[in-house]
């Protein structure tokens, strides 16, 4: 079950299309709930229980509990919603970038600065 259109392949990049949205609905809905401070506190008290409340798949729950961003994306997570989950753990965008690219945070930041020099 997925769209039959030919998809554009962009290395290292997942486009949040219908296929991703179908897979990730529960995960993204959970992340959307984190706009509320009460919900963030409830999640921190019992992460696994909170995932179950939103009917996350085992794959999604595992990705959330291990805070593995690439796995969350593979499981249909959308960057804009996942950012709210990262925020709970005080992760900024350089922490998340470093994790996904397998770099240290310092190296990731240096790479960004480098991009301004060419």
């Amino acid at each position, binding site marked *: 079950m997925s769209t039959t259109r030919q998809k*554009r392949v*962009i*290395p*290292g*990049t*997942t*486009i*949040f*299309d*219908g296929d991703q*949205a179908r897979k990730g*609905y529960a995960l*993204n*809905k959970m*992340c*959307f709930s*984190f*706009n*509320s*401070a009460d919900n*963030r506190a409830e999640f921190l008290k019992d992460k696994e229980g909170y995932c179950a409340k939103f009917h996350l798949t085992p794959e999604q729950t595992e990705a959330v509990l291990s805070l593995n*961003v*690439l796995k969350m*994306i593979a499981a249909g997570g*959308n*960057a*804009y*919603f*996942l*950012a*709210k989950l990262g*925020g*709970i753990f005080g992760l*900024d*965008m*350089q922490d*998340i*970038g470093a994790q*996904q*690219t397998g770099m240290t945070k310092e190296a*990731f930041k240096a*790479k*960004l*600065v480098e*991009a*301004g020099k*060419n």
Partner: protein
Amino acid sequence: MAKIVGGINVTHVPYIGRAIANNLQQDEYWKPFFDGFPPIHDWLAKVKPDVAVVIYNDHGLNFFLDKMPTFSVGAAPEYQNADEGWGIPTLPPYKGDLDLSWHMIESLIEAEFDITTCQEMLVDHAFTLPLELLWPNQKQCPMRTVPVCVNTVQFPLPTAARCFNFGRAIGKAIESWESDARVVVIGTGGLSHQLDGQRAGFINKEFDLMFMEKLVNDPLWVTRYSVPDLVELTGTQGVELLNWLTMRGTLPGDVSLIHSNYHIPISNTAAGLMAMAAE
């Protein structure tokens, strides 16, 4: 009839909110970004707009995937900011302009844009921070506002051509509004950046600079690119440049560049800024 005085495009990274709250404008990291604004403040003081139409994308505060509009227009007396999940203090409410909102809604539907109307609407950092940057140190933003959202979250996104034409229709709506108000249009987001995936941290300075140059006198240049092209060229969040293009569509006739600035990086983003005066 109302007059469009010009338009401004500006990056909207949440991180900027923290820099303002902590007064870091002249720190080494932030100075090259904040120093872009004074010439635009001067221009705004001269052209004296009364109303700001703000074209941006919501980041999962007002819209979720259960009801995700391609284009939406606010029609509320007041717009509240709210917690986006990071516990950052919320900003004071923004005044709406119901007369302009409804005039725009009527004109846009007549022009066959299938908008979603929002008579209640939370506005996120993509709306609030640009206003904060353009009218700093105020208790409450002095502009009346109309929020306009473009979907850059759930693909398929509207094409570049559709966004430009949407902007054109917004411009015509403003110019046919029976009012002596002076209107500034603001587009927010971009430029090149990618938050997610193994390509996180991707930035494309060459494309950004070309885009900023073309935006002044040849904005249709960018319509040669499909949305997937734009993702490839500017990153998964770089497509927020559709908001810039929509803004540009609103400006009638030729425009003149007032000021621009470009700096890498702010957070993971190439930060751009441009103000253009309408003739």
